[in-house]
């Protein structure tokens, strides 16, 4: 469709890992000045493909052509020399170094034996002006918000004269506003002749920004699509290989008694600064209260305080009529609180344990899993088998280690454990982070099912779409405070997005 010359082409690219065919004869073309969207679930082989183009892996078969000429990319230096730049999903920055040092690293300008920071700084300022990438070259990277860190990564590629830019899930860590900013930058880059490969599994964004879309599944290109004609549904079914329901179907909530009452709660973060400031809200049985907000506005501390993983400095937490403030975590659990933590690897599972052992982490000492002081293996195995089947955890057996599962399956296993435990209050934090479309659909359905069964659900998410489609009421957190609680029916992206950025709604509206 495009008349522009092809700047990057891969032909029959294949990569095998022990037991897995990660990339199976992939063909792709990237034209000058276009945004090529690369869609695919986790494990579809997107990252493997990009790592081969960037020289971090070497392909087993096939060839890569840059500007029509076959090239041999053995390491990132070769890729950089060919004008290929990559912004990794997990930023490759050194937090304790300054922006300038991070950008010049590897291609330092020197004067005699010494670094020439001044010269590098000048170039960074010039690039940042040319492409509208605003950044302070002298700031330490660790002090910068993620959106700015991403800008540093992009400048890093441009500093090395990249004209082919690979963006690996760039919007995963951004707020809606920051994502808009990123798209602005991408358009500027395209206008200046840069070509971009945009990797994502957010269908909406891909449709919005890309000129061309390729879909990967199980290491193969299963199709390409024109964003002008494709729909989210058609792309999703291409990605997953079956029909996917993107909208969550749910009936209106029938809220009952409050199961969680938070009163004037104050919590400190790791640096002893106030992270949750005098918060008051409640969650009723049979409703989903969604907490929206940009990462780092106190949501993590709030959830940790409710589950007693973090001490409460002031205020009260009442679960099902019982004051549980500063209980031990086990006592809170026994009061009837289930918790799917935001960082499942760290707080939701023991990755070296088997699935079976992960299933009884909170209940190993109770009947039926314990018989006196010994474990009841039969009961444990039986329950684990049943849950794995019920919650669609794809695994060869319940005895493999949790760490060997993909992110989506790990999450489904954690969900299985927490959702099957009899509970009055369910706290789910970032339930679909790093989880593929098929699993997202499944987890969302289960959350609604819990609500319909009369459980009060506290949903914490930075994904606006998730909040909007699941919640019955939406609370927006900003700087440790809830700045508004609105019924889901009155909420739209624009309004919540502004609240998330800390723009308080005028008092006029309410009084």
């Amino acid at each position: 469709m495009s008349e522009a010359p092809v700047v990057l082409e891969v032909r029959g690219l294949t990569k095998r890992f022990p037991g897995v065919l990660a990339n199976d004869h992939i063909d792709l073309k990237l034209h000058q000045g276009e945004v090529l969207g690369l869609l695919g679930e986790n494990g579809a082989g997107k990252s493997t493909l990009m790592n081969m183009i960037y020289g971090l892996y070497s392909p087993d078969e096939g060839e890569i052509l840059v500007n029509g000429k076959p090239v041999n990319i053995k390491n990132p230096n070769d890729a950089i020399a060919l004008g290929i730049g990559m912004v990794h999903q997990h930023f490759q920055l050194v937090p304790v170094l300054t922006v300038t040092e991070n950008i010049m690293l590897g291609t330092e300008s020197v004067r005699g034996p010494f670094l020439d920071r001044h010269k590098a700084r000048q170039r960074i300022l010039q690039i940042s002006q040319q492409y509208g990438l605003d950044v302070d070259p002298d700031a330490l990277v660790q002090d910068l918000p993620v959106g700015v860190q991403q800008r540093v990564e992009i400048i890093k590629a441009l500093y090395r004269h990249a004209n082919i830019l690979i963006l690996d899930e760039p919007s995963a860590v951004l707020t809606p506003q920051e994502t808009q900013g990123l798209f602005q930058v991408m358009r500027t880059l395209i206008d200046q002749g840069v070509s971009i490969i945009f990797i994502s599994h957010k269908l909406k964004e891909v449709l919005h920004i890309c000129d061309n879309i390729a879909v990967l599944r199980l290491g193969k290109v299963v199709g390409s699509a024109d964003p002008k004609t494709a729909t989210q549904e058609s792309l999703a079914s291409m990605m997953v290989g079956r029909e996917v329901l993107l909208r969550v179907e749910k009936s209106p909530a029938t809220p009952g008694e409050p199961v969680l009452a938070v009163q004037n709660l104050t919590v400190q973060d790791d640096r002893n600064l106030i992270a949750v400031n005098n918060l008051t809200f409640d969650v009723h049985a049979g409703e989903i209260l969604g907490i929206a907000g940009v990462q780092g506005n106190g949501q993590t501390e709030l959830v940790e305080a409710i589950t007693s993983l973090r001490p409460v400095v002031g205020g009260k937490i009442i679960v099902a009529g019982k004051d549980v403030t500063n209980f031990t975590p086990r006592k809170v659990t026994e009061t009837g609180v289930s918790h799917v933590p935001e960082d499942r690897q760290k707080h939701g599972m023991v990755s070296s344990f088997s699935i079976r052992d992960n299933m009884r982490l909170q209940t190993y000492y109770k009947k039926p899993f314990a018989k006196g002081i010994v474990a009841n293996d039969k009961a444990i195995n039986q329950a684990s088998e049943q849950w794995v089947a019920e919650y669609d955890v794809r695994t060869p057996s319940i005895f493999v280690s949790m760490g060997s599962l993909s992110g989506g399956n790990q999450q489904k296993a954690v969900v299985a454990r927490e959702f099957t435990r009899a509970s009055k209050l369910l706290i789910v934090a970032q339930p679909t982070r790093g989880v593929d479309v098929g699993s997202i659909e499944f987890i969302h359905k289960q959350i609604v099912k819990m609500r319909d069964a009369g459980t009060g659900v506290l949903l914490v998410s930075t994904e606006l779409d998730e909040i909007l489609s699941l919640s019955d009421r939406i609370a927006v957190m900003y700087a440790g405070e809830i700045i508004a609680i609105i019924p889901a029916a009155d909420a739209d992206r624009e309004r919540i997005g502004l609240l998330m950025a800390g723009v308080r709604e005028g008092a006029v509206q309410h009084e």
Partner: protein
Amino acid sequence: MKITRTFIFSIVFLLAGGLLLIAALQRTNEIVPYRMTTLPQHVVPSVAFEAPGVTTSILRFPNEDDSLSFNLEIPTVSYSLIVALLFVGVGTYGLVPLQNERAQRTKTNGLILAGILIIPTVLILAAAGQSTNMISMLGASFRLGTPIIIGAMAGIWCERSGVVNIAIEGMMLTGAAFGFVAYTFVTASIPGQGGLWIGIAVAVASGGLMALLHAWLSVTFKTDQIISGTVINIMALGLTAFMRREVILNADASFETLSEFSIPLLSKIPVLGEVLFTGKPIFFSMFLLVILTHVMLYYTRWGLRTRAVGENPHAADTLGINVQRNRYINVIIGGLIAGLAGAWFSLETAGGFRDGMTSGTGFIALAAMIFGKWTPFGAAAGGLLFGFSQALDTRFQLLNVPIPVQFVQMTPYLVTMIVLAGLVGRATAPKAVGQPYEKE
């Protein structure tokens, strides 16, 4: 009430201050009110609220040119009273339940000040009623600090690139032994001090070889770096003891050491001249190494890359930096430096080799490095603190202080605990230190 570090240290200082206060109050009769006429002519009184009383601690600063000599006479009882009150005050304030950030900062700074004051206080109390030569005391601190500071620089090169080096001790010992062995071989055929210099070269090289082994095990084979370091420490013990028995004992060499020299002009500066500008070659090389390490780390391309590799090797790799090569080179340079520190023992100080003669200095060097938060100047300050405390040991014995010497030897570690573990905050090691780099 929550038990915090501030809380614990406040109690410690409150107790220490209280004890000191009681001791000092019992002797208030020794305080003589200040009168102008009692001030001796050639004495510089310190922060004296009183004339030199019955009990004074005299710190002497002699000089070749006697007109430049001076003494600090410190009225022991008054000094103790002031310090005791300060300790009690800081401790009490630390216990006041104030939560705001400014109060917390004041508490922390107060406790740090009290922690630092421990050092002069110990010295002054020890010298009560006597006099002690501070110039030789300070000189000894720097001299004894030399192998610690050089060892700490070895650690910085290594660990900044992300490789833990607990093998500094072993590398030093190897350097000490092999340097001396080389010296015994060549000394007969080379006149003057040439043999010693060849010894130093061999010491440096042998430290580097041990480091090569460390790099090979921990970078190439990704062995646990602690284990690899332990292997080298144990191996060095055995290997050097063997060398001593087989070679050194049979050697017929006149055991001399590197000779001392003074830097012209600079060595004439009062106090500093004798402490800093008179010494032996390895002593002087220490200053150079600290400065070089600092410049390397913060102002050169190699330093920037090393810091990046030690913090986030994966990021460095994506920018085309060869992580393994960087670590190899840094570990080996660290080993060469550790070898030099070893030569300090056998060739600059003792003029011989004893089994295990480094006696844990390598580990103290690591402590100094951590004390300085992996920065060259910080580590040098830490090394100096440890050197000072070792000098204090000898001084205590000279002064006949009725405290078991082992307790005195604890002082620097006490100070380290207070300053480091307690108050300055967590020491921040390079993020990737100890982790072998795996290219996913």
